[in-house]
C-alpha cells in the first residue's frame, strides 16, 4: 500500500516537471558561418550582451546575403531568428521596428497608407520605393561622383584623341601635298582623312570595349571578394557601349575634320617643304 502511494507520488512529481522545449532554429549568413566555422546543426548560445545569459539555438540554415548596396561597406554578421525569441532575448517586449505590408495593387496601397497614417500615432507608413530611395542615398552620391569622374575622363580622352589625330594627319602632310598638286580636291582629301579617323575611332572603341569588359570582370572579382557580396560593382551595358562608341566616333570625326581642314588650308608647296613650321622655328630662335 505504502509502495503504491510512493509510486503514485513519484509519478506525479515527474509529471509536474515542465518539459523543456527543444532549441529553436536560426539562420546565419555565409560570412558568419565562414568566419566562425559554423555548420548547419551546430548549437549556439545567443545573448543580447557579451557574456550574458541567453538561449541555445540550432543553426537551421546558412543564407546568402542579397546583393544589397546598402550593406556593402558593413562588416557585421547577420542572424535571422524567430521574432518572439529575439524580443525575449533583447527584452524588447511586444514591439517591432517595422512591419512590411502587402497590398492588392497601387490603389489599395494609397488607401492603406492613408488609413494607417490617419489611425496610427507614433509610426508612419511609407512606400517601399520611398524607403529604397532613402537607403540608396549613399549610392546616389557614389553614382554622382562616378559621373563627375567620367566627365573628366571623357575630357582627357577627347584631348588625347584630338592630339593623336592631329599628329596622324600631320604625318601625312607630304602625301596630302602630293594629292593636292595632282589635282585632288580639298573636299576629297578631307573626306578621306575623316574616313580614316572614323576607322581609327571605331577600331579603338572596339579595343576599349574589350579592355573595359576585362577591367569590369577584374573589378567585380576583386570587390566581391573584399566585401563578400554577390553585388556587381562594374557593369557594361549595351547603352554604355553605344555611348562610348558614339562619343569616340564623334570625337574622332571632329578631330579628323579639324586636322584635315588645317592641312588643306595651307598652300600645297608649303606643306611639301614644311616652310611655315621652319619659319616659326627660326623666329623662335631669333627672338
Amino acid at each position, binding site marked *: 500500500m505504502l509502495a503504491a502511494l510512493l509510486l503514485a507520488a513519484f509519478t506525479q512529481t515527474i509529471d509536474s516537471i515542465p518539459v523543456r522545449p527543444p532549441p529553436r532554429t536560426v539562420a546565419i549568413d555565409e560570412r558568419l558561418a565562414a568566419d566562425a566555422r559554423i555548420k548547419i546543426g551546430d548549437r549556439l548560445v545567443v545573448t543580447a550582451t557579451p557574456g550574458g545569459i541567453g538561449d541555445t539555438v540550432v543553426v537551421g540554415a546558412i543564407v546568402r546575403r542579397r546583393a544589397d548596396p546598402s550593406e556593402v561597406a558593413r*562588416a557585421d554578421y547577420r542572424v535571422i531568428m524567430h521574432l518572439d525569441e529575439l524580443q525575449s532575448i533583447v527584452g524588447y517586449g511586444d514591439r517591432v521596428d517595422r512591419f512590411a505590408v502587402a497590398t492588392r495593387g497601387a490603389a489599395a496601397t494609397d488607401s492603406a497608407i492613408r488609413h494607417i497614417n490617419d489611425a496610427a500615432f507614433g509610426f508612419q507608413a511609407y512606400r517601399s520605393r520611398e524607403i529604397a530611395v532613402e537607403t540608396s542615398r549613399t549610392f546616389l552620391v557614389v553614382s554622382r561622383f562616378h559621373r563627375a569622374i567620367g566627365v573628366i575622363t571623357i575630357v582627357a580622352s577627347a584631348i588625347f584623341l584630338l592630339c593623336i589625330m592631329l599628329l596622324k594627319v600631320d604625318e601625312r602632310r607630304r602625301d596630302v601635298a602630293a594629292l593636292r598638286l595632282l589635282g585632288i580636291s580639298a573636299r576629297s582629301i578631307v573626306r578621306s582623312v575623316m574616313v580614316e579617323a572614323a576607322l581609327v575611332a571605331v577600331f579603338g572603341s572596339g579595343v576599349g570595349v574589350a579592355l573595359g569588359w576585362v577591367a569590369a570582370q577584374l573589378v567585380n572579382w576583386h570587390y566581391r571578394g573584399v566585401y563578400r557580396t554577390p553585388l556587381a560593382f562594374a557593369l557594361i551595358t549595351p547603352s554604355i557601349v553605344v555611348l562610348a562608341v558614339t562619343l569616340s566616333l564623334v570625337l574622332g570625326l571632329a578631330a579628323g575634320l579639324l586636322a584635315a581642314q588645317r592641312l588643306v588650308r595651307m598652300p600645297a608647296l608649303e606643306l611639301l617643304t614644311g616652310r611655315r613650321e621652319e619659319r616659326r622655328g627660326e623666329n623662335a630662335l631669333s627672338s
Partner: protein
Amino acid sequence: MLLQLAWATLTRHRSRTLLAILGVAVSAAMLLDMVMLSTGMRVSLRNLLLSRGFQLRLAPKGTLPFDTDATIPDASTVIRVLRTIPDVTTISPVLGGQLHITVGGRTITATALGVDPSVQGDFEIAQGRIPAAPNELVASDDFLRASGAKLGDTLSAAAGYDPQLRSFTGRRALVLVGRAHFFYMPAEQRAVALPITTLQQMRGTDARDRASLFMIRARDGADVEAVLHRIQTALPTVTAVSTETALRQVDERLSYFRQLAFILGAVSLAVGFLLVTTLVTVSVNERLGEIVVMRAIGVARSRVVLQIVIEGVAIMFVGALAGLLLGLATARYLNSILAAFPGLPAAIDFFLFEPRDAWGALGLLTVAGILAGIYPSWRGASLPIAITLREEAVG
C-alpha cells in the same frame, strides 16, 4: 642654347604643343585629385578625432562609436573602473537618442546627445553658454532654423512615444541656452545637446545608467596603446578603440575610394606619359634630318638627348602647373559631391590639399616627362649619321 632649341621646336607646332599641354594638364589635375583623395579622408578624419584631445573611445562590444543603437550598460561602473586606470585623465560619457521637440504647434525631431557638460568634446558654443542645469539644452543652427526657436525659449521635449496611449513619453520642459557647432554631425543635421542624466531620465528604463560612447583622454606623453590595452583588460564587455584603430576600421570600410584613387591616379599618369611619349616620338621622327646634321657637325649624342628630354619635361611641367590649378578646382567640386554622404560628419573632407601632395604629383609628372623623352631621343641620336643623312636628303 639647349633651352632655345627646345623652345623653337615646341613653338614650331603650336597647336600640337598646346593640345599636349592641355592633355597633360587634365591628367595632372586627375592625378592630384586622386592623390588628395587617397590621403585626404584619412588625414581629415584623424584631425577630427583628435581635435578635442580624446585619443580613445569606448563603444558597445563589436561596434564603432554610434554605428548602431546599442548602448553600454552600467555607465557609472565603467567610469569608476576607468578612473582606476593610470594615465586616464578625462572621461566623457555620451548617450545618443532622439528628441521630439514641440515649437509653435509643430513637432521637430532632432538628434540628441546627452553629455557631461564639464568634459564634453562633441560641440563648441557659438552663442550663449553650455547647458549646466538639468533642464537646459543647446541646439545646432539647423535645428534653430527649422524650429524658429531663440535663445532663452522654453521648449517642450519628449524622448519617445507610446503608440497605445497615443502620447509622448519622457516629456520635459527644456530651456534653450546656447547655439552650438557639433563636430561629428553631418551637414544639415538638426541636433541638440543636454546633460546626460536628463536624457537618461527622459528615455526611461531603456537608458537608465547607459551610455552610447565614452571618450577618453590620456595624459600627455602617455602610451595610448598601453592605456587601450589596460582598458580592454579591465572592461572586456566593451570595445575600446584608439584613433589609429578607428582610422584602420574606417579605412577598411572606405577602401574602395583609396583603391579607386590609386587606379585612376595610375591611369592619369599613364595617359600623360603616353601623350608626351607619342608627341616626342613624332617630333623626333620629323626632325631626324636636323638631329643627324647636329650629330654630323659634332654635337654630342648626350646634348641631343638632353635637348629632346627638355622638350618632354617642359610639356609635362607646364601641363602639371596648369593641372594643379585645374585639380584644385575639380577637387572642390568632387568634394562637394561626396560631402552629401549620409551620416558623414560635415568636417570630413575627402579631398584635402596638402602641399606635399602637390609636390608629389608634380614630381611624378616630371619624372614621367623625363622617361617619356629618353627612349625616342636616344633612338634618334643613335641613328647612323651617313645613312640617315642620305635617306633624309633623298626622301
